[in-house]
């Protein structure tokens, strides 16, 4: 909404409120005050009317008393002289001058002595009026009970022919020094003529309304008037009616006087209000229009111009432009301030532009570095043999390398986890495992995952934010193709089976047959070289079988196919039995062996009896083999939770340089691998023994060795601690 519209709306609203307020005052508050004033005016008018009405009654009473306090009248009561009647009441002049319509004279006993009626009144009315009036004047009646003490009585009297103004006065002499001898009653009909008189005097238009039982409305007003003197009822905007009641001599309400009164005050007030409102509206509107134009010219137009100036600067993007300003009002100040602001903007824009150039150079430099870093990283990742995917926590691929696409048979290019999952089967659900990995914050591994003729190793590891170790940024999936390794393992196993069966079977036949020959046919062979050849064949077959067995044992140990049957047993009998088996070899070399097991109380171990025996045989055989003179010593030693078997010889010893090669496969601790001893020539003995010891949870090591002095080997086995 534009400022003009807002301004108009505000003025309109304010005027509406102002006039609404005025209207409320003029219709609710002011009329209340005016109606009070009006009521007072009406009340005073009505009081005046009532007074005039009373005066008229008073006047009749005066006339009545004039006649009653007259000696002639007094005398008439006693003398009854017709002359008095004739001269005083005989002509129409009496009625015209006294304003009386009926006269009745009675004596003190209430006996009517004289009565007369205004001859201008029609005869029927004359009779009924006279009759009803006489009914009210009898001995003891209120009208007839007046005397000197009470004074005259006057008031109103209701008759069937209409209301009468009535007065009665006791008759006495003019000096009033004798007792009253009768009563004079005069009455006047309250007719239109009489009312006209009152109207003339009060300058109002009044009416007499007789109270009748049937007129409910008048009854109600009459009831109200029993408490108040005056009742006012508005009839229209210009007139209202005022009522006073008329009571008879018995103080009974017999009728109402109604005055029609013009509402001059009220009308004048409204005329004034209307003129005032009109004037107010005219001046108010004029002010509003004036204000609006002033506002337009002084505020809106300059503002619009200012806006168009701003627009121009914005559109041209020219911070060198300035706004013309003259004058000293607020808008001009605004322009000047804006110009100053443009000055500063121009300056900062300039420096910003310089800075921006610097920054963009910096950014492009750093971007290049980033691109280079990324290229290096991608090259590294792509150079990996392993499949590599970096996933975000929602399973979206962030980075994947080429090897991954190869392993999963996916075209190089765009792809995601869902596509990857299609290439995998249900045994490894990438999505579920990703959730598990993220939830546990631990890596998930699956080995030997066979798919599409390949063996894969799946390794899923959570990746944490380097700056906050608690925040996961995704997961890393590394897939290793272990097919070749598996194939190798398998061929090794196959080799084992084939070698063990196919190689050993013919060897068994050679050995078995040469053994049979030696046993059952040797007596038939006379030729010494022939018999020697058969012996050599037999010895060679035994050695060959031994070599094959060593290879097989090595393979078995390496593949982990060896069955280890752990048991608790005492080592001493096992050692003794091995020593027994070597007796022949010792004898051949003239060597001595010492074993004194008493030093150790508990020689129980937890291991595989046969394997331990094999190791012992191997080590003792070796000791005999490399010792030409001297002795072998076997000792036991407790070493923490282990039981050590020390096998010492007085042989040639092992040079320092060769010691580290001692337990290697195919190595004998000789200077050269080409010069070797011939007894047990595979060089696998120590290697196998060490592997067996390791598998049993123990150790085999060379404790000490000195060239030409001898060596000490130690077999360390877990003790049976139970």
């Amino acid at each position, binding site marked *: 909404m534009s400022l003009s519209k807002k301004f108009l709306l505000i003025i309109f609203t304010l005027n509406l409120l102002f006039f609404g307020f005025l209207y409320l005052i003029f219709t609710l508050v002011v009329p209340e005050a005016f109606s009070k004033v009006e009521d007072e005016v009406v009340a005073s008018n009505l009081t005046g009317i009532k007074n005039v009405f009373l005066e008229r009654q008073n006047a009749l009473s005066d006339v009545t008393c004039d006649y009653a306090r007259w000696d002639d009248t007094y005398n008439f009561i006693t003398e009854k002289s017709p002359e008095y009647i004739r001269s005083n009441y005989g002509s129409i002049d009496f009625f015209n001058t006294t304003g009386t319509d009926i006269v009745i004279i009675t004596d003190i006993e209430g006996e009517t002595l004289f009565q007369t009626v205004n001859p201008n009144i029609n005869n029927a009315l004359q009779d009924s009026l006279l009759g009803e009036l006489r009914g009210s004047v009898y001995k003891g009646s209120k009208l007839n009970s007046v005397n000197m003490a009470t004074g005259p009585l006057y008031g109103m009297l209701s008759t069937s022919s209409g209301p009468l103004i009535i007065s009665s006065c006791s008759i006495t002499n003019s000096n009033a020094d004798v007792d009253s001898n009768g009563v004079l009653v005069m009455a006047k009909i309250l007719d239109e003529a009489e009312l006209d008189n009152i109207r003339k005097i009060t300058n109002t238009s009044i009416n007499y309304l007789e109270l009748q039982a049937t007129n409910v409305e008048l009854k109600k007003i009459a009831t109200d008037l029993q408490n108040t003197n005056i009742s006012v009822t508005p009839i229209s905007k210009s007139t209202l009616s005022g009522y006073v009641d008329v009571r008879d001599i018995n103080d009974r309400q017999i009728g109402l006087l109604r005055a029609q009164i013009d509402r001059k005050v009220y009308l004048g007030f409204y005329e004034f209000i209307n003129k005032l409102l009109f004037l107010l509206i005219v001046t108010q509107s004029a002010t509003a229009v004036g204000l609006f134009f002033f506002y337009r010219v002084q505020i809106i137009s300059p503002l619009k111009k200012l806006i168009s100036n701003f627009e121009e600067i914005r559109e041209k993007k020219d911070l060198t432009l300035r706004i013309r300003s003259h004058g000293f009002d607020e808008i001009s100040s605004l322009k000047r301030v804006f110009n100053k602001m443009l000055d500063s903007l121009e300056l900062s824009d300039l420096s910003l532009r310089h800075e921006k150039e610097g920054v963009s150079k910096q950014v492009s430099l750093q971007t290049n570095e980033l691109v280079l870093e990324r290229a290096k990283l991608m090259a590294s990742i792509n150079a990996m043999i392993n499949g590599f995917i970096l996933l975000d926590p929602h399973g979206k691929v962030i980075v994947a390398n080429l090897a991954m696409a190869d392993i999963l048979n996916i075209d190089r290019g765009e792809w995601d986890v869902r596509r990857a999952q299609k290439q995998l089967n249900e045994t490894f659900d990438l999505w579920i495992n990703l959730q598990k990995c993220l939830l546990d914050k631990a890596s998930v591994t699956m080995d030997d995952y066979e798919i599409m003729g390949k063996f894969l190793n799946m390794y899923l590891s959570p990746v944490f934010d380097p700056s906050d170790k608690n925040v996961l940024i995704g997961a890393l999936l590394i897939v290793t193709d272990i097919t070749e390794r598996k194939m190798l393992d398998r061929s090794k196993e196959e080799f084992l089976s084939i070698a063990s*069966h196919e190689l*050993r079977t013919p060897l068994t*036949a050679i050995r078995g*047959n040469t053994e*049979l020959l030696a046993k059952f046919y040797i007596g038939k062979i006379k030729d010494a070289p022939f018999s020697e050849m058969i012996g050599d064949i037999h010895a060679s077959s035994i050695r060959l079988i031994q070599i094959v067995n060593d290879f097989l044992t090595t393979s078995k140990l390496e593949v982990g196919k060896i069955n280890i049957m752990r048991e608790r047993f005492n080592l001493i009998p096992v050692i003794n039995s091995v020593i027994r088996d070597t007796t022949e070899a010792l004898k051949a070399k003239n060597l001595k062996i010492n074993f004194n097991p008493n030093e150790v109380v508990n020689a129980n171990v937890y291991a595989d009896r046969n394997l331990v025996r094999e190791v012992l045989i191997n080590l003792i055989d070796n000791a005999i083999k490399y010792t030409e003179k001297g002795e072998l010593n076997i000792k036991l030693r407790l070493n923490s939770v282990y039981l050590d078997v020390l096998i010492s010889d007085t042989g040639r010893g092992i040079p320092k340089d060769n010691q580290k090669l001692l337990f290697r496969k195919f190595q004998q601790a000789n200077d050269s691998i080409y010069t070797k001893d011939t007894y047990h020539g595979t060089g696998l003995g120590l290697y196998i023994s060490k592997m067996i010891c390791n598998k049993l949870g123990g150790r085999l090591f060379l404790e000490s060795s000195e060239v030409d002095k001898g060596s000490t080997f130690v077999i360390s086995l877990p003790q049976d601690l139970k």
Partner: protein
Amino acid sequence: MPKVLVIEDDSLIVRLYQKVFSFEGYDFVSANGGEEGLVKAESEKPDVILLDIMMPKMDGLVVLEKLKANQNTKNTPVVILTNLIDDSVCTKALSMGASGYLVKSELPNHQIVEEVKRFLPAQK
């Protein structure tokens, strides 16, 4: 005279054991393969059966299972005689009812006879 049945497809071994057991005074019967072995185990009523594992058509474990399932042969002691070095096969054979397990190449002739003697009923 105790009777030995050797179920073995390799004639080299069959002939060797024939000599070994004959010289030691045993009645020797051989069967070339599992099917023949099953027939002879029933018809020849040997005192002990030596059974090779690696054989064409029917391997020794199957033969062992059938021997033990047959009412007529199930009480005849069966000694596995092989050159396989797989320990799991040994364990399996023993669990299936084999009386013993011998590795051919590891035993000299006389030891084989000694081992077989162990499974024979008391000498008649």
